[in-house]
């Protein structure tokens, strides 16, 4: 009786159980390393998008307006009429400036030019003008 009970208990080997638990623990920790790295927004991507947005704002702020008065950035914000004048050139300028995998939107008090932004990560740059703030948003498509 005693012997047969011992035999049955011996079948479920304790080292095997311990090893299994140990391996499970290790796999859990490893999974944390593997999955944890992908969680959250990549700060490098955000920094790059902010850089793009700042460069785009700088381009607009140093480009003469189509009317010849002031900069394109100021003209975009000044009035609906000047915005309408600048909308096409702005779009062409930024389309040419950015690589093909980058899209943009420029919001001004007088109107918005560009593409509808996605829900994901975007980079943003703001420039103050006499007629309000111009916001440049940039994202990877």
């Amino acid at each position: 009786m005693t012997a047969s009970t011992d035999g049955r208990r011996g079948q479920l080997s304790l080292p095997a159980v311990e090893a299994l638990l140990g391996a499970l623990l290790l796999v859990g920790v490893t999974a944390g390393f593997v999955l944890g790295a992908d969680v959250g927004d990549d700060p490098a991507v955000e920094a790059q998008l902010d850089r793009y947005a700042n460069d785009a704002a700088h381009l607009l702020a140093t480009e003469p307006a189509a009317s010849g008065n002031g900069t394109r950035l100021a003209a975009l914000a000044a009035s609906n009429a000047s915005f309408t004048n600048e909308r096409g050139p702005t779009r062409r300028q930024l389309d040419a400036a950015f690589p093909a995998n980058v899209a943009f939107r420029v919001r001004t008090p007088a109107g918005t030019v560009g593409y509808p932004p996605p829900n994901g990560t975007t980079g943003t740059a703001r420039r103050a003008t006499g007629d309000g703030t111009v916001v440049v948003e940039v994202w990877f498509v």
Partner: protein
Amino acid sequence: MRGDGARTVDRSRVTQRGDRHAGSARRGQSNLLALVAALTLLTAATAGSVVVADRALSDVDGQPARAHAAAAVADRLVAADSPLTQRDRVVTTVGAGNLTPAAVDRLAPAAQGRPVRVRLGNRTLVDRGTARGPTVRRVVRVVDGTVVRRVPLAGNRTVTVGPTPRVELTVQTRRATVVTTVRADGRVVLHAPGGLSGTATVRTSPAAETTLRVAASGTNGSVVVRSTPPVRTTTLRVTVGSRQSGGGGAAVPIVDGGDGR
């Protein structure tokens, strides 16, 4: 009787003990196998975990340093006081052509001793080592310097200018020679029967090359053509790699010393 009984008891005891011995031996063997399997499993899992953890840690360690160095190099290359630029984020072709790895190191010490690659559009300005790492991109304007071409009236009197919205012509003639007509791709753009003088601006195609042809009454003198190619926008890409271990300037020989023999 007693003896028989005792023997019987003894035998049964022996048998029992023998059985028990046999059972524990079997159990011991299976325990050994289980232990071997368990240790193998645990070692494999540990090794795999260490490899994954090491890779994750080295990524976390190296990535920000390289990204920071690349951002620093890019920032300083496009700054107004960089040798590459004319103004803030306006790169000159001449400055871009003269960029050297040493100049990059001087501008951004973070790049010292690291592989660096700088590309402007599809032109590589600096390529030191195999730069593997995050790439920082900046949008910059590129201006080419003013191109000055002299057209001697004694020559074939034609010159081809690149795509540019306008060119500036300066007539320099001596004695009786006068320049009467300037044609751009066969179209008359300047004409004075008595002779042109001074400087004039001519509109040309911003999209294609234009051939200018000069008509003059003699061969003494020349026409100077100045053209400024239009500003274009392109991407400056900077990649910085990991600092090579044991690198950094001249190779230092490893000296076998002391107990090494």
